[in-house]
């Protein structure tokens, strides 16, 4: 695709635009896209583990809360969630809920990641054989000890591939943060388009940058999986 475009469509001006826009785009990546992704994913993971444990706790109230949270987040578009966190909460007149764009974005993305990843983590915990729970309690471990020492380490291995997918997905979804004024890469691209009037060109460039990030991440994913798989037959 890229080669095709390159050979048949790029005038020298196009090339100039691509070059000029590269640095601003990169800046958007480094100062917003990546921090946003990393921080949201980290918080989201903590949320996700908590939610997953609530779901499997067998305590009705907790698993109810978890269910409702997951259902609302998974049932509505991320865009709407961003709007509610930023404009909705900001409108209540409570100063503490009037988040900065970056903070608002982190809240919305963390909530979103938390809900989706909780399902992954729940499934991976459930995928660990019952025998592992039994073996650990038979040597006297408590529920929390079993979880921490035996179940979660194994569940982690199972959930690395789907969580990596979520992570890579999140990188691209951060582009929606532009709606609440975070100047991540896609926002930068829009700003450039606003002066060059070449949306296709600049968006494809942005797409290529996303692709490179995703590619690097998937290489990293492969490494992590290998490390995690050291204790299973291959």
């Amino acid at each position, binding site marked *: 695709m890229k080669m095709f475009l390159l050979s048949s469509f790029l005038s020298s001006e196009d090339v100039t635009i691509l070059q000029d826009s590269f640095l601003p785009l990169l800046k958007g990546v480094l100062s917003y896209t990546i921090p946003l992704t990393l921080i949201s994913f980290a918080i989201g993971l903590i949320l996700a583990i908590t939610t997953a444990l609530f779901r499997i706790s067998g305590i009705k109230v907790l698993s109810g809360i978890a269910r409702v949270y997951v259902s609302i987040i998974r049932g509505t578009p991320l865009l709407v969630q961003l709007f509610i966190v930023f404009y909705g909460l900001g409108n209540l007149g409570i100063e503490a809920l009037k988040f900065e764009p970056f903070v608002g974005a982190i809240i919305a993305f963390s909530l979103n990641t938390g809900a989706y990843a909780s399902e992954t983590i729940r499934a991976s915990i459930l995928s660990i054989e019952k025998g592992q729970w039994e*073996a650990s*309690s038979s*040597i*006297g471990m408590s529920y929390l000890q079993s979880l921490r020492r*035996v179940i979660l380490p*194994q569940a982690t291995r199972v959930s690395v591939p789907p969580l990596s997918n979520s992570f890579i997905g999140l990188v691209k979804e951060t582009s929606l943060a532009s709606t609440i004024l975070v100047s991540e890469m896609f926002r930068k691209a829009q700003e450039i388009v606003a002066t060059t009037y070449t949306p296709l060109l600049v968006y494809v460039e942005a797409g290529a940058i996303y692709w490179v990030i995703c590619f690097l991440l998937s290489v990293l994913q492969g490494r992590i999986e290998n490390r995690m798989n050291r*204790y299973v037959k291959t």
Partner: protein
Amino acid sequence: MINMNNISKQFGDLVVLKDISLQVEQGKVVVIIGPSGSGKTTLLRCLNVLERPEDGSITIDQQTLKFSEKVSKKEIREFRKQTGMVFQTYNLFPHFTAVQNVMEGPITVQKVAKAKAREKAVDILTKVGLHEKMEVYPYQLSGGQQQRVGIARAMAIDPKVMLFDEPTSALDPELVGEVLQVMKKLAAEGRTMVVVTHEMSFAKEVADEVLFMDNGMIVERGEPSVLFEQPKEERTKQFLNLIKQ
């Protein structure tokens, strides 16, 4: 040593153990046999409190659990440490090496220092003939070796009683011997053991008593030579015919 009184257990409507009572003296080896679904595993799991009976009580050494009353999780955990369970499918922790598997109980539960736990684990693994395989992961071990790690892990918490649930039935025929060897050694050392197994030769050689279970009840019990050669009950005869075939 073990005193089980009027233990009953049901799953939903299915009564699996019917008012079972059982005494085992210190240092004795009891073998349980019986058809599939007769409740052998459930009985063993009750001794380890992996299943909670609806009724009855169990005493091991000094500690008693009365199941008609409320029993706290902490009591159950304490009680559990008196028995070491060896599972049919090993249930080793796949993410720990052999020695880490054996150290896990002492470190996490008994809060023993790491170095000391390791020392002890090495001792036990040497005893079951695995001192050369200490640093490998379970998947790198044969079935017989894995089961021996399972035995070592159970022994590491110094249980008063060892429980075995068909410890050799998932093994290839030639690997069975290794595990039986280790079990015989434990018996010879005077450990109290309750073993579910269909290995006749083991029972004959090692057991002080054999129980035949059917349908949630202990149908017949006796010394192995007597029970195997001159069973009294019709049901026992039938079953012995089947497995000797």
